[in-house]
């Protein structure tokens, strides 16, 4: 197990306190409390509709809580005004399954999108884009391509480079590798672990694949019906499942192997 505490004395970058959220009449998070530790990869797993995506969107303010509070970098997200929310989002790397690369911008301009919003100088932005491409294992020639000229795996890598462009201390990843083939997924997982080892950002990683959750997470959070079913290191989830639901989840991977 890796060092969970991160830098000594650093406060948890994300704190959920008794958060309740609903989508229409349907409750999706129910008195949800959680502290994410600095520098850890927390993988979040559960069935569709268990509230995992909502929990992630509460962190960057794309969703709102009915009650309770979400604190990120010491700021209560629900209390932030539009400008402060924009500033917060620029400190958080965001990667989603559909990637959401901007189709009308080249790879270069996609990667430096946030830097361009901040009006970074051109040559500096190009250097940054090049070094980020290297970081995610892509050729410099791709810089002037458009997203539709890339493969699925390349798009995910560009999405990751874009999220890393402003050296965020926190990455939110919502099933980032859910739509690529098995080999590509394994490559992307290795890439992510390598980047995490070097840069040590905190990563809130959502997945529906228990194998991925156990392989990547320093801790694994199993969610069910808007509540925490179990939270612990991968070995604990595997060896001491807290409920039949968790056992069912981990059983699937044993059958696969």
């Amino acid at each position, binding site marked *: 197990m890796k060092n969970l505490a991160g830098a000594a004395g650093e406060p948890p970058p994300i704190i959920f306190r008794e958060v309740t959220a609903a989508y229409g009449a349907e409750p999706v998070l129910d008195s949800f409390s959680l502290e994410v530790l600095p520098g850890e990869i927390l993988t979040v797993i559960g069935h569709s509709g268990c509230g995992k995506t909502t929990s992630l969107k509460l962190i960057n303010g794309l969703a709102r809580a009915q009650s309770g509070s979400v604190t990120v970098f010491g700021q209560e997200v629900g209390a932030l005004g539009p400008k402060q929310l924009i500033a917060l*989002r*620029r400190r958080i790397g965001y990667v989603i399954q559909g990637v*959401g690369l901007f*189709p*009308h911008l080249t790879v270069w301009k996609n990667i430096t999108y946030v830097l361009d919003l901040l009006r970074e100088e051109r040559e500096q932005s190009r250097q940054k884009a090049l070094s980020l491409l290297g970081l995610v294992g892509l050729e410099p020639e791709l810089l002037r391509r458009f997203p539709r000229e890339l493969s699925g795996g390349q798009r995910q890598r560009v*999405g990751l480079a874009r999220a890393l462009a402003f050296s965020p201390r926190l990455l939110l990843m919502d099933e980032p590798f859910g739509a690529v083939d098995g080999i590509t997924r394994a490559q992307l997982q290795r890439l992510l672990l390598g980047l995490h080892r070097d840069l040590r950002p905190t990563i809130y990683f959502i997945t529906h694949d228990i194998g991925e959750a156990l392989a990547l997470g320093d801790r694994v959070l199993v969610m069910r019906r808007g509540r925490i079913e179990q939270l612990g290191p991968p070995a604990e989830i595997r060896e001491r499942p807290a409920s039949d639901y968790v056992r069912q989840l981990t059983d699937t991977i044993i059958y696969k192997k």
Partner: protein
Amino acid sequence: MLDLAREVWRLYTVRTDFFLSLLGQHLYLSAVSIAIAFFLGGAVGVACARNQAVKAVSMAVVNFLYTIPSIAFFGVLIAFTGIGDTTAIIVLSAYALLPMVRNTCTGISNIDPDVMEAAAGMGTPPLALLWRIQLPLALPMILTGLRNMSVMVVATAGIAAFVGAGGLGVAIWRGITTYNLAMAVAGSLLIAFLALSIDFLLGIWEKKFTQRWSS
């Protein structure tokens, strides 16, 4: 038939200055109307994409404007704005609003939700979202709207002569009232030629803007 063609050609060569000046007026009326409809329709289209209530009301209004027969529209407006260019430009821009509003709104609404989510999640302020993401991605639709609308305006501007505005409609009007078929045909042909040229040129522009990144 051949006589008619010969007579039309004779008109073009003998009365070149007359036709050139009509062509100039026609282009002026069309360009002003197109510009008004482009900016006004574009702005309303953006508002429609942001708010369902605005969309419902604006679409009802521009659809209604679009269905008024042009002759009736000109006729009614004369009572308020008199005869001349102003009336013509109001009517032409009003017609042209529908394609602009509809295409701008559709173009923005159809943007991939993942793209919008990524843009929001990375902290894009509303104005930057509009200029950097929404308008560029809606551009193919907007340019299609501009092209349809321009062709329509150039064609409809032929009727503007009936409310005392200038343009190639003057030749048609004069041809009809003096039983001079060649004169009417000469005006009509130029309108058709103008409309096709604009369609062609805007078509090239549309492709140039979008062929690389859109599938």
